[in-house]
């Protein structure tokens, strides 16, 4: 590339761009045909790791792992108000062709013809290695496995080349469903061990950038922060061969541009637009918009119950009465959420989660509670939120800030960048904040195990320690395990009542998962992990 050419092209740029805007790229016929076999997804941020067991893998990373790896079993599909919805209780084989649940173990028979994307057959050895890896790498994957009482490599036994047995250490209703979440995926142990080092025995560095699974798609190109390209694995045996041959997932930081791309038909799917856009696009009718409530998910106002002022119950109750619930529903969510407040005074507690509290906006009561709590002239604190979801969090906090000011609580808003949000939560020092949590396994005791239990997991952001609450949760899990429905119902109601009485966190609403798709896109499925499942989509 000599100087003359560089200068020539640079001046060419100046000349062409100078003379009006260049015409848009013309599609040749080959590209047109490729176009309806390719799905173009646009979102704000992309994966930072392709391996669910990776250290610090973010939520978009879950989507990549779900579509490129298989699990032993997966959920059947059912229908819920017009949307294909994963069936919580019915499971079917994905890599396993047969599942046999014994008293203290479950045995899986693997499909004979299933192969990894590099052609090597899937064997029980791979399954064992993958499950051992899940429980040993630490961090979130290990914690998730523990939630289903899958804790020790010894539990996973290779019976023969195509049979694996999982022994239970305790009866736990969540064990089987826990084998269907994203974490226990089956990895091509041969390929990964070849690229592992003694410093990194599980080959986390290799699987960070390369997919080594048997899933329906493989990642052919990944430019972090810009683009991920998936190609279909034609010999996929986990289910019917997907229609979409290629998936291009582009990161477009500006929400405005994402909406423009959808409206002009240059993008097929986007799921992280502001709520207002979803409502308007739905009314305009040019696109298919689906809105499905987060399964087992709640947006809440959390308070640090360990140190003052929020260790005082009355102060927490004052906050609960000061929240401008309806204003938040209108201005922050534009109605796209299920309210978790304002239940009628005489409402019975349900055996379900999430369910609404009885709190309403009542500034006078809030002021009086605050006075009783010993803060007649109010107090000063910070209100933090996750900048990654500023679209909802910012208006929510500004409205809350305004109401709290009216009862004398002066707050300064503290924006915390997305990636640091979890780090701040683990420190458990934020006095007042808003956050969302939803459990993958749609069971109340699962939610409470993560969020209210005394073992103080990361998701117990309020550091709430209550022996009574722990008793309820453990009892509920035990009764669920041995199918004692009456005890289970009583314990769940006890948990919920105590949670609403102590109110360490104040539920606001159950958010919706909104997805906008072009008219010619069909086959959207709602999953517990709330990410897109490319395998079911059809186009054109």
């Amino acid at each position: 590339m000599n100087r003359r050419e560089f200068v020539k092209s640079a001046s060419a740029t100046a000349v062409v761009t100078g003379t009006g805007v260049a015409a848009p790229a013309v599609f040749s016929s080959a590209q047109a045909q490729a176009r309806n076999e390719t799905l173009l997804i646009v979102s704000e941020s992309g994966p930072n790791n392709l391996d669910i067991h990776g250290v610090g893998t973010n939520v978009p990373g879950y989507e990549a792992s779900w579509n490129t790896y298989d699990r032993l079993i997966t959920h059947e599909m059912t229908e819920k108000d017009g949307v294909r919805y994963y069936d919580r209780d019915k499971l079917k084989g994905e890599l396993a062709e047969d599942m046999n649940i014994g008293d203290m173990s479950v045995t899986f028979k693997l499909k004979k013809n299933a192969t990894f994307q590099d052609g090597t057959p899937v064997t029980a050895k791979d399954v064992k290695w993958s499950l051992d890896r899940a429980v040993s790498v630490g961090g979130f994957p290990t914690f998730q496995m523990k939630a289903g009482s899958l804790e020790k490599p010894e539990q996973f036994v290779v019976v023969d080349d195509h049979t694996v047995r999982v022994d239970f250490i305790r009866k736990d209703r969540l064990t089987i469903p826990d084998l269907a979440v994203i974490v226990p995926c089956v990895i091509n142990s041969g390929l990964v061990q070849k690229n592992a080092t003694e410093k990194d025995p599980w080959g986390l560095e290799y699987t960070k950038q390369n997919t080594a699974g048997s899933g329906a798609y493989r990642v052919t190109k990944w430019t972090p922060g810009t683009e991920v390209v998936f190609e279909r694995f034609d010999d996929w045996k986990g289910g019917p061969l997907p229609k979409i041959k290629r998936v291009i997932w582009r990161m477009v930081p500006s929400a405005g541009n994402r909406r423009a791309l959808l409206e002009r038909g240059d993008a097929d799917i986007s799921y992280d637009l502001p709520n207002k856009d979803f409502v308007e696009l739905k009314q305009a009718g040019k696109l298919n918009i689906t809105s499905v409530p987060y399964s087992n998910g709640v947006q809440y106002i959390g308070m640090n119950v360990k140190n003052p002022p929020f260790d005082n119950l009355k102060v927490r109750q004052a906050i609960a009465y000061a929240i401008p619930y309806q204003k938040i529903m209108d201005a922050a969510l534009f109605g796209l959420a299920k309210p978790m407040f304002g239940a009628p005074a005489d409402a019975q507690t349900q055996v379900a989660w999430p369910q609404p509290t009885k709190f309403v906006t009542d500034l006078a009561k809030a002021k009086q509670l605050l006075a009783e709590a010993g803060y007649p002239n109010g107090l000063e604190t910070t209100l933090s939120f996750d900048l990654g979801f500023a679209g909802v969090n910012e208006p929510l906090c500004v409205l809350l800030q305004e109401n709290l000011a009216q009862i004398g609580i002066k707050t300064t808003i503290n924006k915390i960048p997305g990636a640091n949000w979890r780090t701040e939560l683990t420190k458990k020092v934020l006095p007042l904040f808003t956050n969302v949590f939803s459990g993958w396994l749609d069971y109340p005791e699962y939610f409470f195990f993560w969020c209210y239990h005394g073992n103080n997991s990361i998701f117990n952001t309020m550091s709430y320690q209550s022996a009574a609450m722990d008793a309820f949760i453990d009892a509920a899990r035990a009764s669920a395990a041995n199918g004692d429905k009456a005890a289970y119902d009583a314990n769940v109601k006890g948990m919920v009542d105590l949670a609403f009485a102590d109110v360490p966190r104040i539920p606001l609403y159950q958010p919706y998962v909104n997805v906008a798709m072009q008219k010619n896109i069909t086959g959207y499925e709602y999953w517990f992990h709330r990410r897109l499942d490319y395998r079911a989509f059809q186009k054109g």
Partner: protein
Amino acid sequence: MTLATADTPAPRGLAATLAHARYVISDNPVTGIAFGMFLVLVVCALLGPFIVPYDPLASDTAAALQAPSAAHWFGTDNLGRDIFSRVIVATRLDMAIAVFSVALVFAAGGIAGIASGFFGGWTDRIIGRISDTIMAFPLFVLAMGIVAALGNTVTNIVIATAIINFPLYVRVARSEAAIRRQAGFVQAARLTGNSEWRILLTTILPNIMPIMMVQMSLTMGYAILNAAGLSFIGLGVRPPTPEWGIMVAEGAAYIVSGEWWIALFPGLALMFAVFCFNLLGDGLRDIVDPQRRT
């Protein structure tokens, strides 16, 4: 061409500058407009909170996202707050950011520049290297680094803006001081027993003040733009304080969906201010530029 001055008794002191300023304004209408705009900004900054129809912080979700109407001249934002009131009240904060960051960078960069131009030698080399180092950073990224590191309070935004403009001021001050270093009146000041530092501050500084004023007015524009840029990536002023940059940044998401007024009016206000400062800069240069002072 000293023909005119010798005979007609020239007005003295302040009257002279005023007469001269009046002449330049009438001679060059654009500068006149700039002064007018500056007055409007100052009035909004001082009286802002008292003359606005609504409380800039009061949200009214029922009236959210309304187009400009008789009730709300600039319409309302996503929380139903009156955009007209927020734009007017934001003037004070934005002007503060502009004025303080410019004052800070003039004190630091200006003096350092004069010292390096006047003394030369090692002072010049050290200050030169410092400003080179700052120049090596892409200016905006450095500002972000400072605000990210120290937290996004207004003072940090002012400090960050000052630091990134430091090299510019050093360069201007240095060249002006270097020219005057050997001037006759500087030598004369040395003869009458003035120490180097006294000469620097009482002789060199006043003489380069005009040129620095031109530079300061230009940088005020950039200071506000910088604050707006920081807001766009989430490091700007903390909500709910009204500030043009953050209002434009938030409004930007609503352009495509049709609520153009949320971003447009703070954008126009921002444009009005930066426009005024730039034109003011050119106007000041005409007043100050000796060639124009025939």
